[in-house]
C-alpha cells in the first residue's frame, strides 16, 4: 500500500471523522460527497462515538498475508452509538466471550505494517467492555 493511500485516511482511522448530512442527518463514514439517503451534497463534520455493540462477528483462522501472523483474530461488524456500522477487529478477546449485542469500545491499535522496514499503519480496533 502506498504511503499516500494510508496517509489520506488518517482522519477517519485515527479520529473517526465522518460527515453528517445537513439535510437528513445521515452519517457517512467515511465521508461522502453525496448523501445516499437524500441526495444532498451538504455535510457537516461529525465525529463518531467510540462505543457500540457487536452486530455479527467471526474468528479468522486463515488470514491474508498481512495478517497471517495474527491468526486467529476476531473481526466484527460494530454498530456504534450513533448507529453507524463499521468493520473492526475485536482485540484481546477469547472468541467464547464475544456475543452478538455485546458491548465494545474502540481503541487505537496497530493494524498492519509494511514488513520490517515499511510504514506502520494504525487504526481502530474494538475491545470488549
Amino acid at each position, binding site marked *: 500500500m502506498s504511503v499516500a*493511500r494510508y496517509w489520506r*485516511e488518517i482522519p*477517519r*482511522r485515527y479520529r473517526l471523522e465522518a460527515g453528517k448530512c445537513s439535510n437528513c442527518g445521515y452519517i457517512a*463514514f*467515511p465521508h461522502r460527497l453525496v448523501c*445516499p439517503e437524500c441526495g444532498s451534497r451538504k455535510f457537516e463534520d461529525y465525529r463518531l462515538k467510540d462505543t457500540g455493540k457487536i*452486530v*455479527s*462477528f*467471526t*474468528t*479468522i*483462522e*486463515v*488470514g*491474508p*498475508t*498481512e*495478517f*497471517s501472523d*495474527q491468526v486467529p*483474530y476476531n*473481526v*466484527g*461488524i*460494530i454498530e456504534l452509538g450513533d448507529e453507524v*456500522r*463499521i*468493520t*473492526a*477487529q475485536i482485540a484481546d478477546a477469547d*472468541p467464547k466471550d464475544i456475543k*452478538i449485542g455485546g458491548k465494545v469500545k474502540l481503541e487505537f491499535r496497530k*493494524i*498492519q505494517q509494511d514488513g520490517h522496514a515499511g510504514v506502520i*499503519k494504525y*487504526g481502530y*480496533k474494538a475491545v470488549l467492555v
Partner: protein
Amino acid sequence: MREVAIIGVGLMKWGELWKKSFRDIFVEAALNSIDDAGVERIDSMYIGCMSGGLFTGQEHIGSIMADYLGQKHIPAARVESACASGGLAVKMGFLEVASGMSDIVLVGGVEKMTDVDGGGATAALATAADQEYEVYNGITFPGLYAMIARAHMDKYGTKREHLADVAVKNHSNGLHNPNAQFQMKISREDVLNSVMVASPLRILDCSPITDGAAAMILCDLETAKRISKKMPVRILGIGHASDTIALHNRKDLTTLNSTVKAAQDAYKMSGVKPSDIDVAEVHDCFTIAEIVASEDVGFFEKGEGGCAVSDGRTQIGGQIPINPSGGLKSKGHPVGATGVAQVIEIVEQLRGNAKERQVENAKTGLTQNMGGSGGSSIIHILKGEE
C-alpha cells in the same frame, strides 16, 4: 429489442491447470462453444474476468483473447463486477444482440487463479470488498460470509448442519459433472470436522480456488431458429442490481438486497414467478450464500432456506433443484467464469442434456451470480425454445 437466444455452449475441465495458461483456458472453452453452436464467425465478444491483472499480471484481456481465438479485429471487451463478472458478460452479450449491434456474440468468462499463491489469491479476491474500510482491518471473504452466517443463525435459527448440507448436496450433484474440480462425495460430518477458516465457516463450506473458463454463443432468436442445430435457449429476463460493497453498511446482514432487487427485475422482465422456475444455479461461493440466495430470489420464505436444504427440497428431484452442476462448491469457482458456467448448466438442463444430473422436465431455469458480499447480483431467467 430483439429476442436473444443461446445457441452454443463450451466448457472445459476445471481445476488446478498447471500446464495451461490464462489464454489457453479461455480459447479452449471458446472453441468448444463455437463448435457447439456450429457458427463460422462471431461479430463481437464479451469476457467476464475479475482480475486478470492481479492473478496473472495480464490486462487488456478482450484483445488478447480475441487475438488468440483467431478473431482478428472483432470488438472485444472485458467486463468486471467481481465474482459476478461472468453474469455481467452474459448481460452485455444480450444487450449487444438485442440492440442489433451484433448478430452473433461470443460471451466468455475466465479466471486463472493458481499463478499466485494462496495469499495472493486471497488478496486478489479481497479487492471485491471495501479496501480501506473492510479489508484494511483484516476481514476476508470467508470472514464476511461468516458474519452473514452468524447473523442468519442468530435471527432465524439456521443451524450449522444446514450449512453443511448445502455442501453435501452440491458435492453429490458434482459427482456427475465431468468438468467439476472436486468430484467427491462428502458427508455432513466431513464438513463439520473440516478445518475452520472463519468461524462458523469451515473449509468445506468454501468454494475452491480454480482455473477455468466458460463460453457461449448468443444470437437473435430468428437467426437462432434458422441456424441452430440444437434447441436454442432464450434469455427471457435479466435482473442486475448493485448494493453497498461494504457489508457493514447494510441494515440487515441476513438478506442481500442486490439479489432481491435483481430477482424482482428479472421476474418482471420475463413474466415468470419463482414457482415457475424448474431449476436454478445460485452463487454458493460459501454454503450460507446459497441459503440466503435461495430465499432472496423468492424460492423460500426468509429464514427457511436452511431447513429447505436439509429437507431435500433443493436436491435434484426436490421442489426446486438448486445447483445440479455441483455449484461453485464442487465445480470450482474461477470467479470470472462462474456466471457464464451457471448459464451453461441451465442451457444443458433445458436441452435435456445433463445426463445423471438432469432435472426432469426442466423448462424454465434461473441463474444468480453474485459479486463480493452482495455488492452486485445478476440474475438470468432462461427458457428452452421448443
